[in-house]
Protein backbone atom coordinates (compact mmCIF):
# COMPACT_ATOMS: atom_id res chain seq x y z
CA UNK A 1 0.00 0.00 0.00
CA UNK A 2 2.65 2.49 1.02
CA UNK A 3 4.75 1.45 -1.92
CA UNK A 4 1.86 2.09 -4.23
CA UNK A 5 1.35 5.46 -2.62
CA UNK A 6 4.97 6.40 -3.00
CA UNK A 7 4.81 5.32 -6.62
CA UNK A 8 1.84 7.59 -7.08
CA UNK A 9 3.64 10.40 -5.31
CA UNK A 10 6.58 9.87 -7.65
CA UNK A 11 4.43 10.11 -10.77
CA UNK A 12 2.36 13.02 -9.53
CA UNK A 13 5.05 15.16 -8.01
CA UNK A 14 8.64 13.99 -8.15
CA UNK A 15 8.80 13.02 -11.82
CA UNK A 16 7.22 16.19 -13.28
CA UNK A 17 9.21 18.32 -10.86
CA UNK A 18 12.43 16.65 -11.99
CA UNK A 19 11.54 16.98 -15.67
CA UNK A 20 10.67 20.67 -15.43
CA UNK A 21 13.17 21.95 -12.89
CA UNK A 22 15.94 19.48 -13.65
CA UNK A 23 17.57 21.22 -16.64
CA UNK A 24 17.61 24.66 -15.07
CA UNK A 25 18.96 23.24 -11.82
CA UNK A 26 21.73 21.48 -13.68
CA UNK A 27 22.75 24.63 -15.54
CA UNK A 28 22.57 26.89 -12.50
CA UNK A 29 24.73 24.51 -10.48
CA UNK A 30 27.25 23.59 -13.17
CA UNK A 31 27.58 26.97 -14.86
CA UNK A 32 26.90 29.43 -12.03
CA UNK A 33 27.56 27.90 -8.61
CA UNK A 34 30.52 25.67 -9.46
CA UNK A 35 32.41 28.27 -11.57
CA UNK A 36 31.98 30.95 -8.91
CA UNK A 37 33.19 28.58 -6.19
CA UNK A 38 36.10 27.68 -8.41
CA UNK A 39 36.96 31.38 -8.72
CA UNK A 40 37.02 31.55 -4.92
CA UNK A 41 39.37 28.55 -4.83
CA UNK A 42 41.58 30.04 -7.53
CA UNK A 43 41.89 33.28 -5.59
CA UNK A 44 43.94 31.46 -2.95
CA UNK A 45 46.06 29.51 -5.46
CA UNK A 46 49.62 30.34 -6.46
CA UNK A 47 51.43 30.57 -9.76
CA UNK A 48 54.44 28.39 -10.52
CA UNK A 49 57.48 29.71 -12.38
CA UNK A 50 55.81 29.08 -15.76
CA UNK A 51 52.75 31.13 -14.79
CA UNK A 52 50.63 28.01 -14.39
CA UNK A 53 48.05 27.90 -11.63
CA UNK A 54 49.02 25.46 -8.87
CA UNK A 55 46.85 24.46 -5.96
CA UNK A 56 49.19 25.73 -3.29
CA UNK A 57 47.37 27.78 -0.69
CA UNK A 58 48.39 31.41 -0.45
CA UNK A 59 46.88 34.69 0.65
CA UNK A 60 49.38 36.70 -1.35
CA UNK A 61 46.80 37.48 -4.05
CA UNK A 62 44.71 39.22 -1.44
CA UNK A 63 47.62 41.12 0.07
CA UNK A 64 48.51 42.33 -3.42
CA UNK A 65 45.05 43.85 -3.67
CA UNK A 66 46.12 46.42 -1.08
CA UNK A 67 48.71 47.79 -3.47
CA UNK A 68 48.43 51.61 -3.64
CA UNK A 69 47.94 51.64 -7.43
CA UNK A 70 45.01 49.27 -7.09
CA UNK A 71 43.46 51.23 -4.25
CA UNK A 72 43.56 54.30 -6.47
CA UNK A 73 41.60 52.39 -9.11
CA UNK A 74 39.04 51.10 -6.57
CA UNK A 75 38.37 54.67 -5.48
CA UNK A 76 38.26 55.83 -9.11
CA UNK A 77 35.77 53.03 -9.97
CA UNK A 78 33.51 53.96 -7.10
CA UNK A 79 33.62 57.65 -8.04
CA UNK A 80 32.83 56.83 -11.69
CA UNK A 81 30.00 54.46 -10.70
CA UNK A 82 28.58 56.93 -8.18
CA UNK A 83 28.65 59.91 -10.55
CA UNK A 84 27.15 57.74 -13.30
CA UNK A 85 24.33 56.60 -11.02
CA UNK A 86 23.54 60.14 -9.85
CA UNK A 87 23.56 61.45 -13.43
CA UNK A 88 21.30 58.59 -14.53
CA UNK A 89 18.81 59.52 -11.79
CA UNK A 90 18.96 63.25 -12.55
CA UNK A 91 18.47 62.71 -16.29
CA UNK A 92 16.37 59.56 -16.14
CA UNK A 93 13.82 60.62 -13.52
CA UNK A 94 12.36 63.72 -15.17
CA UNK A 95 12.60 62.01 -18.56
CA UNK A 96 10.77 58.87 -17.38
CA UNK A 97 8.25 61.09 -15.62
CA UNK A 98 7.45 63.06 -18.76
CA UNK A 99 7.02 60.03 -20.99
CA UNK A 100 5.07 58.04 -18.39
CA UNK A 101 2.65 60.95 -17.90
CA UNK A 102 2.10 61.54 -21.60
CA UNK A 103 -1.57 60.90 -22.18
CA UNK A 104 -1.68 60.61 -25.93
CA UNK A 105 -1.02 57.62 -28.15
CA UNK A 106 2.49 58.91 -28.61
CA UNK A 107 3.46 57.33 -25.31
CA UNK A 108 4.13 53.94 -26.83
CA UNK A 109 6.25 55.47 -29.55
CA UNK A 110 8.18 57.56 -27.02
CA UNK A 111 8.82 54.41 -25.01
CA UNK A 112 10.01 52.47 -28.06
CA UNK A 113 12.34 55.33 -28.96
CA UNK A 114 14.19 54.72 -25.70
CA UNK A 115 14.73 51.07 -26.55
CA UNK A 116 15.59 51.27 -30.27
CA UNK A 117 19.13 52.67 -29.83
CA UNK A 118 19.95 49.62 -27.73
CA UNK A 119 19.45 47.26 -30.60
CA UNK A 120 22.60 48.58 -32.15
CA UNK A 121 25.56 46.88 -30.56
CA UNK A 122 26.79 48.76 -27.49
CA UNK A 123 30.43 48.64 -28.59
CA UNK A 124 29.63 50.30 -31.87
CA UNK A 125 27.61 52.98 -30.17
CA UNK A 126 30.46 53.68 -27.75
CA UNK A 127 32.75 53.84 -30.76
CA UNK A 128 30.24 56.27 -32.28
CA UNK A 129 30.89 58.58 -29.33
CA UNK A 130 34.60 58.34 -30.02
CA UNK A 131 34.02 59.40 -33.63
CA UNK A 132 31.89 62.23 -32.32
CA UNK A 133 34.31 63.51 -29.69
CA UNK A 134 37.73 62.65 -31.16
CA UNK A 135 40.24 65.18 -32.47
CA UNK A 136 39.11 64.50 -36.04
CA UNK A 137 35.52 63.97 -34.93
CA UNK A 138 32.35 65.90 -35.47
CA UNK A 139 32.58 68.34 -32.58
CA UNK A 140 36.07 69.39 -33.51
CA UNK A 141 35.12 69.76 -37.17
CA UNK A 142 32.26 72.04 -36.17
CA UNK A 143 34.36 74.05 -33.73
CA UNK A 144 37.13 74.47 -36.28
CA UNK A 145 34.70 75.17 -39.08
CA UNK A 146 33.20 78.01 -37.07
CA UNK A 147 36.72 79.21 -36.16
CA UNK A 148 35.95 78.91 -32.47
CA UNK A 149 39.15 76.95 -32.02
CA UNK A 150 42.19 76.66 -34.27
CA UNK A 151 43.71 73.51 -32.84
CA UNK A 152 41.52 70.43 -32.27
CA UNK A 153 40.46 70.06 -28.66
CA UNK A 154 41.09 66.66 -27.14
CA UNK A 155 37.82 65.72 -25.54
CA UNK A 156 38.61 62.01 -25.25
CA UNK A 157 40.50 59.96 -22.71
CA UNK A 158 39.29 61.76 -19.64
CA UNK A 159 37.29 60.53 -16.68
CA UNK A 160 34.41 62.66 -17.93
CA UNK A 161 34.28 60.84 -21.28
CA UNK A 162 34.25 57.46 -19.53
CA UNK A 163 31.36 58.64 -17.35
CA UNK A 164 29.53 59.87 -20.46
CA UNK A 165 29.92 56.40 -22.00
CA UNK A 166 28.76 54.67 -18.81
CA UNK A 167 25.70 56.92 -18.52
CA UNK A 168 24.97 56.26 -22.17
CA UNK A 169 25.21 52.46 -21.84
CA UNK A 170 23.36 52.15 -18.55
CA UNK A 171 20.67 54.85 -18.56
CA UNK A 172 17.93 52.54 -19.91
CA UNK A 173 18.37 50.40 -16.79
CA UNK A 174 17.39 53.52 -14.83
CA UNK A 175 14.69 54.82 -17.17
CA UNK A 176 12.74 51.56 -17.54
CA UNK A 177 12.15 50.76 -13.81
CA UNK A 178 11.40 54.45 -13.16
CA UNK A 179 8.92 54.45 -16.02
CA UNK A 180 7.19 51.38 -14.56
CA UNK A 181 7.06 52.91 -11.07
CA UNK A 182 5.78 56.29 -12.30
CA UNK A 183 3.18 54.75 -14.57
CA UNK A 184 1.70 52.88 -11.60
CA UNK A 185 1.34 56.14 -9.70
CA UNK A 186 -2.28 56.87 -8.82
CA UNK A 187 -3.05 60.36 -10.16
CA UNK A 188 -5.86 60.88 -7.66
CA UNK A 189 -3.23 61.00 -4.92
CA UNK A 190 -1.56 63.93 -6.65
CA UNK A 191 -4.88 65.72 -7.00
CA UNK A 192 -5.66 65.04 -3.36
CA UNK A 193 -2.31 66.44 -2.33
CA UNK A 194 -2.79 69.66 -4.25
CA UNK A 195 -6.44 69.96 -3.18
CA UNK A 196 -5.26 69.80 0.40
CA UNK A 197 -3.06 72.78 -0.30
CA UNK A 198 0.34 71.21 -0.86
CA UNK A 199 2.69 73.14 -3.10
CA UNK A 200 3.91 71.25 -6.20
CA UNK A 201 7.35 70.86 -4.64
CA UNK A 202 6.01 69.28 -1.46
CA UNK A 203 3.68 67.05 -3.49
CA UNK A 204 6.76 65.87 -5.32
CA UNK A 205 8.93 65.26 -2.26
CA UNK A 206 6.23 63.88 0.01
CA UNK A 207 3.99 61.95 -2.36
CA UNK A 208 5.54 61.28 -5.75
CA UNK A 209 9.12 60.57 -4.70
CA UNK A 210 8.33 58.08 -1.88
CA UNK A 211 5.88 56.22 -4.13
CA UNK A 212 8.39 55.88 -6.94
CA UNK A 213 11.47 55.24 -4.81
CA UNK A 214 11.36 51.53 -5.66
CA UNK A 215 12.23 52.45 -9.26
CA UNK A 216 15.12 54.62 -8.11
CA UNK A 217 16.51 51.85 -5.91
CA UNK A 218 16.37 49.10 -8.50
CA UNK A 219 17.62 51.47 -11.21
CA UNK A 220 20.57 52.54 -9.06
CA UNK A 221 21.53 48.94 -8.35
CA UNK A 222 21.38 48.03 -12.04
CA UNK A 223 23.51 51.05 -12.98
CA UNK A 224 26.08 51.14 -10.17
CA UNK A 225 27.17 47.49 -10.23
CA UNK A 226 27.77 47.06 -13.99
CA UNK A 227 29.76 50.33 -13.98
CA UNK A 228 32.46 48.66 -11.88
CA UNK A 229 32.92 45.99 -14.55
CA UNK A 230 32.38 47.73 -17.91
CA UNK A 231 36.00 47.66 -18.99
CA UNK A 232 35.32 48.26 -22.67
CA UNK A 233 33.81 51.70 -22.03
CA UNK A 234 36.90 52.98 -20.22
CA UNK A 235 39.08 51.20 -22.79
CA UNK A 236 37.49 52.95 -25.76
CA UNK A 237 36.67 56.34 -24.25
CA UNK A 238 39.01 56.56 -21.27
CA UNK A 239 42.17 55.36 -22.98
CA UNK A 240 43.72 54.00 -19.79
CA UNK A 241 43.19 57.19 -17.80
CA UNK A 242 40.01 56.12 -16.09
CA UNK A 243 40.20 52.38 -15.48
CA UNK A 244 37.58 50.62 -13.41
CA UNK A 245 37.96 47.34 -11.47
CA UNK A 246 36.79 45.52 -14.62
CA UNK A 247 39.93 46.69 -16.47
CA UNK A 248 42.14 45.28 -13.71
CA UNK A 249 40.39 41.90 -13.90
CA UNK A 250 40.44 41.83 -17.69
CA UNK A 251 44.19 42.44 -17.75
CA UNK A 252 44.91 39.58 -15.35
CA UNK A 253 43.00 37.16 -17.56
CA UNK A 254 44.43 38.40 -20.86
CA UNK A 255 47.81 40.11 -21.11
CA UNK A 256 48.75 39.83 -17.43
CA UNK A 257 48.06 36.09 -17.36
CA UNK A 258 47.75 36.03 -13.59
CA UNK A 259 44.45 34.22 -13.08
CA UNK A 260 44.65 33.89 -9.26
CA UNK A 261 45.10 37.63 -8.86
CA UNK A 262 42.22 38.26 -11.29
CA UNK A 263 40.13 35.79 -9.28
CA UNK A 264 40.87 37.67 -6.05
CA UNK A 265 39.84 40.95 -7.71
CA UNK A 266 36.61 39.27 -8.87
CA UNK A 267 35.88 38.15 -5.31
CA UNK A 268 35.96 41.83 -4.29
CA UNK A 269 33.36 42.60 -6.95
CA UNK A 270 31.22 39.70 -5.73
CA UNK A 271 31.39 40.98 -2.14
CA UNK A 272 30.51 44.53 -3.21
CA UNK A 273 27.56 43.13 -5.20
CA UNK A 274 26.32 41.08 -2.23
CA UNK A 275 26.51 44.08 0.11
CA UNK A 276 24.63 46.32 -2.32
CA UNK A 277 21.94 43.68 -2.91
CA UNK A 278 21.51 43.31 0.88
CA UNK A 279 21.10 47.08 1.23
CA UNK A 280 18.62 47.04 -1.64
CA UNK A 281 16.56 44.32 0.09
CA UNK A 282 16.72 46.23 3.42
CA UNK A 283 15.27 49.25 1.62
CA UNK A 284 12.33 47.07 0.64
CA UNK A 285 13.51 46.32 -2.90
CA UNK A 286 11.96 43.40 -4.73
CA UNK A 287 14.46 41.09 -6.43
CA UNK A 288 11.95 40.15 -9.13
CA UNK A 289 11.74 43.71 -10.39
CA UNK A 290 15.43 43.64 -11.36
CA UNK A 291 15.23 41.28 -14.31
CA UNK A 292 12.26 42.53 -16.25
Amino acid at each position, binding site marked *: MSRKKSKHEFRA*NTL*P*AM*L*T*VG*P*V*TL*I*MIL*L*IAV*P*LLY*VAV*MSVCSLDEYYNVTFKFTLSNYTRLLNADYIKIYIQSIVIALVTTVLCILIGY*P*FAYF*IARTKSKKK*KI*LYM*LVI*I*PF*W*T*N*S*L*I*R*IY*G*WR*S*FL*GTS*GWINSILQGLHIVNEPVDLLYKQGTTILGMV*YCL*IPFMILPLYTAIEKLDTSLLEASSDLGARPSSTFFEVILPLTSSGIFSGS*LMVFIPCL*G*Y*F*FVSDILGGGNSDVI*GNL*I*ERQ*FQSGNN*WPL*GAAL*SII*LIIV*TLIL*VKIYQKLGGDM*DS*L*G*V
Partner: protein
Amino acid sequence: MKRQSRIKAKKGFSIGFCALVYTFLFMPILVIVVNSFNATTTKPYMSWKGFTFDWYQKLWENTSLLGAFGNTMIIAIISTILATIIGTLGAIGMYKYKFKGKKVIDALLYIPVVIPEIVLGIALLTIFAKVNIPRGMITLILAHVTFCIPFVIFNVRARLSGYDGSIEEASMDLGANRLVTFFEITLPVLAPGILGGALLAFTLSIDDVIISYFVYGQTKTYPLKVMESVKSGVSPDVNALSTLILIGTIIFVVITQCDWSSKKKAK
Protein backbone atom coordinates in the same frame (compact mmCIF):
# COMPACT_ATOMS: atom_id res chain seq x y z
CA MET B 1 -4.05 83.63 -17.40
CA LYS B 2 -0.82 83.57 -15.45
CA ARG B 3 -1.45 79.94 -14.54
CA GLN B 4 -1.95 79.03 -18.16
CA SER B 5 1.30 80.57 -19.25
CA ARG B 6 3.04 78.76 -16.43
CA ILE B 7 1.60 75.44 -17.59
CA LYS B 8 2.71 76.28 -21.11
CA ALA B 9 6.22 77.06 -19.94
CA LYS B 10 6.30 73.80 -18.01
CA LYS B 11 5.18 71.87 -21.05
CA GLY B 12 7.77 73.61 -23.18
CA PHE B 13 10.45 72.73 -20.67
CA SER B 14 9.50 69.06 -20.55
CA ILE B 15 9.39 68.75 -24.34
CA GLY B 16 12.76 70.46 -24.60
CA PHE B 17 14.26 68.23 -21.95
CA CYS B 18 12.96 65.04 -23.57
CA ALA B 19 14.25 66.20 -26.96
CA LEU B 20 17.70 66.68 -25.43
CA VAL B 21 17.68 63.18 -23.92
CA TYR B 22 16.57 61.63 -27.21
CA THR B 23 19.35 63.52 -28.99
CA PHE B 24 21.79 62.05 -26.49
CA LEU B 25 20.41 58.55 -27.06
CA PHE B 26 20.49 58.78 -30.85
CA MET B 27 23.67 60.81 -31.38
CA PRO B 28 26.11 57.89 -31.75
CA ILE B 29 23.60 56.09 -34.00
CA LEU B 30 23.53 59.14 -36.24
CA VAL B 31 27.34 59.09 -36.32
CA ILE B 32 27.30 55.40 -37.30
CA VAL B 33 24.74 55.87 -40.07
CA VAL B 34 26.46 58.95 -41.51
CA ASN B 35 29.90 57.32 -41.35
CA SER B 36 28.62 54.30 -43.24
CA PHE B 37 28.36 56.64 -46.26
CA ASN B 38 31.74 58.27 -45.63
CA ALA B 39 34.10 58.06 -48.61
CA THR B 40 37.22 58.23 -46.42
CA THR B 41 39.71 55.40 -46.84
CA THR B 42 42.28 56.38 -44.23
CA LYS B 43 42.26 55.22 -40.64
CA PRO B 44 40.65 55.99 -38.25
CA TYR B 45 37.92 56.66 -40.83
CA MET B 46 36.53 59.63 -38.96
CA SER B 47 36.87 62.78 -41.04
CA TRP B 48 34.26 63.32 -43.73
CA LYS B 49 35.49 62.86 -47.30
CA GLY B 50 32.25 62.81 -49.24
CA PHE B 51 29.25 60.59 -49.82
CA THR B 52 29.52 57.03 -51.14
CA PHE B 53 27.64 53.71 -51.21
CA ASP B 54 30.94 51.83 -51.57
CA TRP B 55 30.99 50.46 -48.05
CA TYR B 56 27.70 48.67 -48.57
CA GLN B 57 29.27 46.90 -51.55
CA LYS B 58 32.55 46.21 -49.78
CA LEU B 59 30.57 44.69 -46.92
CA TRP B 60 29.71 41.68 -49.10
CA GLU B 61 33.39 41.06 -49.74
CA ASN B 62 34.29 41.20 -46.05
CA THR B 63 33.70 37.51 -45.38
CA SER B 64 35.23 37.54 -41.91
CA LEU B 65 32.84 40.28 -40.77
CA LEU B 66 29.85 38.54 -42.35
CA GLY B 67 31.02 35.25 -40.82
CA ALA B 68 31.19 36.89 -37.40
CA PHE B 69 27.69 38.25 -37.90
CA GLY B 70 26.55 34.76 -38.91
CA ASN B 71 28.08 33.35 -35.71
CA THR B 72 26.25 35.97 -33.67
CA MET B 73 22.94 34.99 -35.25
CA ILE B 74 23.53 31.24 -34.87
CA ILE B 75 24.52 31.65 -31.21
CA ALA B 76 21.61 34.00 -30.51
CA ILE B 77 19.03 31.72 -32.14
CA ILE B 78 20.25 28.49 -30.51
CA SER B 79 20.73 30.08 -27.07
CA THR B 80 17.34 31.78 -27.24
CA ILE B 81 15.58 28.53 -28.10
CA LEU B 82 17.41 26.56 -25.39
CA ALA B 83 17.05 29.26 -22.73
CA THR B 84 13.37 29.69 -23.55
CA ILE B 85 12.60 25.96 -23.29
CA ILE B 86 14.67 25.38 -20.15
CA GLY B 87 13.52 28.64 -18.55
CA THR B 88 9.82 28.12 -19.26
CA LEU B 89 9.87 24.55 -17.93
CA GLY B 90 11.81 25.72 -14.89
CA ALA B 91 9.43 28.59 -14.14
CA ILE B 92 6.40 26.28 -14.36
CA GLY B 93 8.05 23.58 -12.25
CA MET B 94 9.15 26.03 -9.59
CA TYR B 95 5.67 27.49 -9.47
CA LYS B 96 3.82 24.20 -9.23
CA TYR B 97 5.96 21.78 -7.28
CA LYS B 98 7.57 21.77 -3.89
CA PHE B 99 11.04 20.29 -3.61
CA LYS B 100 14.18 20.57 -1.59
CA GLY B 101 16.68 23.24 -2.56
CA LYS B 102 14.14 25.44 -4.33
CA LYS B 103 15.42 28.48 -2.45
CA VAL B 104 18.97 27.75 -3.55
CA ILE B 105 18.01 27.65 -7.24
CA ASP B 106 16.01 30.82 -6.76
CA ALA B 107 19.05 32.56 -5.29
CA LEU B 108 21.32 31.25 -8.06
CA LEU B 109 18.97 32.69 -10.68
CA TYR B 110 19.57 36.21 -9.43
CA ILE B 111 23.32 35.93 -9.80
CA PRO B 112 23.55 36.49 -13.59
CA VAL B 113 21.16 39.43 -13.25
CA VAL B 114 23.04 41.39 -10.60
CA ILE B 115 26.65 40.27 -10.79
CA PRO B 116 29.01 42.28 -13.06
CA GLU B 117 29.21 40.40 -16.36
CA ILE B 118 32.98 40.27 -16.20
CA VAL B 119 32.82 38.07 -13.08
CA LEU B 120 30.56 35.58 -14.82
CA GLY B 121 32.83 35.73 -17.88
CA ILE B 122 36.01 34.87 -16.01
CA ALA B 123 34.22 32.26 -13.86
CA LEU B 124 33.07 30.44 -17.00
CA LEU B 125 36.51 30.84 -18.58
CA THR B 126 38.25 29.25 -15.58
CA ILE B 127 35.82 26.34 -15.38
CA PHE B 128 35.94 25.66 -19.14
CA ALA B 129 39.74 25.67 -18.92
CA LYS B 130 39.63 23.38 -15.89
CA VAL B 131 37.45 20.70 -17.50
CA ASN B 132 39.17 21.13 -20.86
CA ILE B 133 36.23 22.19 -22.97
CA PRO B 134 37.82 23.89 -25.98
CA ARG B 135 36.61 27.45 -26.31
CA GLY B 136 34.45 28.15 -29.34
CA MET B 137 30.85 27.90 -30.48
CA ILE B 138 29.90 25.40 -27.74
CA THR B 139 31.27 27.48 -24.87
CA LEU B 140 29.69 30.62 -26.31
CA ILE B 141 26.29 28.93 -26.50
CA LEU B 142 26.62 27.48 -22.98
CA ALA B 143 27.53 30.91 -21.63
CA HIS B 144 24.68 32.67 -23.44
CA VAL B 145 22.11 30.07 -22.36
CA THR B 146 23.28 30.52 -18.77
CA PHE B 147 22.88 34.28 -18.60
CA CYS B 148 19.62 34.26 -20.61
CA ILE B 149 17.71 31.67 -18.56
CA PRO B 150 16.98 33.90 -15.53
CA PHE B 151 15.46 36.60 -17.72
CA VAL B 152 13.14 34.05 -19.35
CA ILE B 153 12.17 32.67 -15.95
CA PHE B 154 11.37 36.10 -14.49
CA ASN B 155 9.21 36.96 -17.48
CA VAL B 156 7.29 33.68 -17.38
CA ARG B 157 6.98 33.92 -13.60
CA ALA B 158 5.43 37.39 -13.88
CA ARG B 159 2.80 35.82 -16.13
CA LEU B 160 2.31 32.86 -13.77
CA SER B 161 1.54 35.08 -10.81
CA GLY B 162 -1.87 35.83 -12.30
CA TYR B 163 -2.40 32.25 -13.46
CA ASP B 164 -5.46 30.31 -12.41
CA GLY B 165 -4.42 26.68 -11.93
CA SER B 166 -8.00 25.46 -11.83
CA ILE B 167 -8.28 25.56 -15.63
CA GLU B 168 -5.65 22.82 -15.73
CA GLU B 169 -7.71 20.73 -13.35
CA ALA B 170 -10.77 21.36 -15.47
CA SER B 171 -8.88 20.19 -18.53
CA MET B 172 -7.77 17.00 -16.79
CA ASP B 173 -11.26 16.39 -15.39
CA LEU B 174 -12.54 16.56 -18.94
CA GLY B 175 -10.20 13.75 -19.86
CA ALA B 176 -7.10 15.46 -21.24
CA ASN B 177 -3.85 13.96 -20.05
CA ARG B 178 -1.00 15.93 -18.55
CA LEU B 179 0.83 16.53 -21.84
CA VAL B 180 -2.26 17.60 -23.76
CA THR B 181 -3.17 19.93 -20.90
CA PHE B 182 0.33 21.39 -20.97
CA PHE B 183 0.31 22.12 -24.70
CA GLU B 184 -3.34 23.14 -25.03
CA ILE B 185 -3.88 25.04 -21.81
CA THR B 186 -0.73 26.00 -19.94
CA LEU B 187 1.45 27.10 -22.87
CA PRO B 188 -1.10 29.35 -24.61
CA VAL B 189 -1.84 31.16 -21.35
CA LEU B 190 1.84 31.73 -20.66
CA ALA B 191 2.68 32.62 -24.28
CA PRO B 192 3.08 36.40 -23.83
CA GLY B 193 5.51 35.90 -20.95
CA ILE B 194 7.44 33.26 -22.87
CA LEU B 195 7.63 35.48 -25.95
CA GLY B 196 8.75 38.49 -23.91
CA GLY B 197 11.43 36.39 -22.25
CA ALA B 198 12.62 34.98 -25.57
CA LEU B 199 12.86 38.43 -27.12
CA LEU B 200 14.86 39.69 -24.15
CA ALA B 201 17.13 36.64 -24.33
CA PHE B 202 17.75 37.24 -28.03
CA THR B 203 18.55 40.91 -27.46
CA LEU B 204 20.94 40.12 -24.62
CA SER B 205 22.66 37.45 -26.69
CA ILE B 206 23.32 39.51 -29.82
CA ASP B 207 24.57 42.47 -27.78
CA ASP B 208 26.80 40.56 -25.37
CA VAL B 209 30.42 41.66 -25.42
CA ILE B 210 31.90 41.05 -22.01
CA ILE B 211 31.03 37.42 -21.31
CA SER B 212 31.69 36.35 -24.92
CA TYR B 213 35.06 38.10 -24.76
CA PHE B 214 36.30 35.52 -22.26
CA VAL B 215 34.92 32.33 -23.81
CA TYR B 216 35.15 32.77 -27.59
CA GLY B 217 38.33 30.92 -28.58
CA GLN B 218 38.43 31.09 -32.40
CA THR B 219 34.73 31.70 -32.99
CA LYS B 220 34.43 35.46 -33.25
CA THR B 221 31.05 37.08 -32.91
CA TYR B 222 30.13 40.40 -34.47
CA PRO B 223 30.67 42.44 -31.26
CA LEU B 224 34.04 40.76 -30.75
CA LYS B 225 35.01 41.58 -34.33
CA VAL B 226 34.24 45.22 -33.59
CA MET B 227 36.22 45.05 -30.34
CA GLU B 228 39.22 43.79 -32.28
CA SER B 229 39.15 46.73 -34.70
CA VAL B 230 38.38 49.42 -32.13
CA LYS B 231 42.04 50.20 -31.44
CA SER B 232 42.99 50.84 -35.07
CA GLY B 233 39.69 52.35 -36.14
CA VAL B 234 36.41 50.67 -37.02
CA SER B 235 36.11 50.57 -40.79
CA PRO B 236 32.97 52.00 -42.37
CA ASP B 237 31.75 48.62 -43.61
CA VAL B 238 31.10 47.77 -39.95
CA ASN B 239 29.01 50.94 -39.80
CA ALA B 240 27.24 49.82 -42.97
CA LEU B 241 26.39 46.46 -41.40
CA SER B 242 25.21 48.16 -38.19
CA THR B 243 23.01 50.48 -40.23
CA LEU B 244 21.46 47.53 -42.08
CA ILE B 245 20.83 45.71 -38.77
CA LEU B 246 19.23 48.81 -37.32
CA ILE B 247 16.93 49.18 -40.33
CA GLY B 248 16.07 45.48 -40.08
CA THR B 249 15.12 45.70 -36.41
CA ILE B 250 13.06 48.85 -36.93
CA ILE B 251 11.12 47.17 -39.74
CA PHE B 252 10.62 44.11 -37.51
CA VAL B 253 9.28 46.25 -34.67
CA VAL B 254 6.96 48.28 -36.89
CA ILE B 255 5.49 45.10 -38.38
CA THR B 256 5.00 43.33 -35.03
CA GLN B 257 3.56 46.45 -33.41
CA CYS B 258 1.07 46.97 -36.23
CA ASP B 259 0.01 43.35 -36.04
CA TRP B 260 -0.47 43.67 -32.33
CA SER B 261 -2.67 46.76 -32.49
CA SER B 262 -4.88 45.43 -35.30
CA LYS B 263 -5.44 42.22 -33.37
CA LYS B 264 -6.39 44.23 -30.33
CA LYS B 265 -8.89 46.18 -32.37
CA ALA B 266 -10.40 42.99 -33.72
CA LYS B 267 -11.06 41.86 -30.18
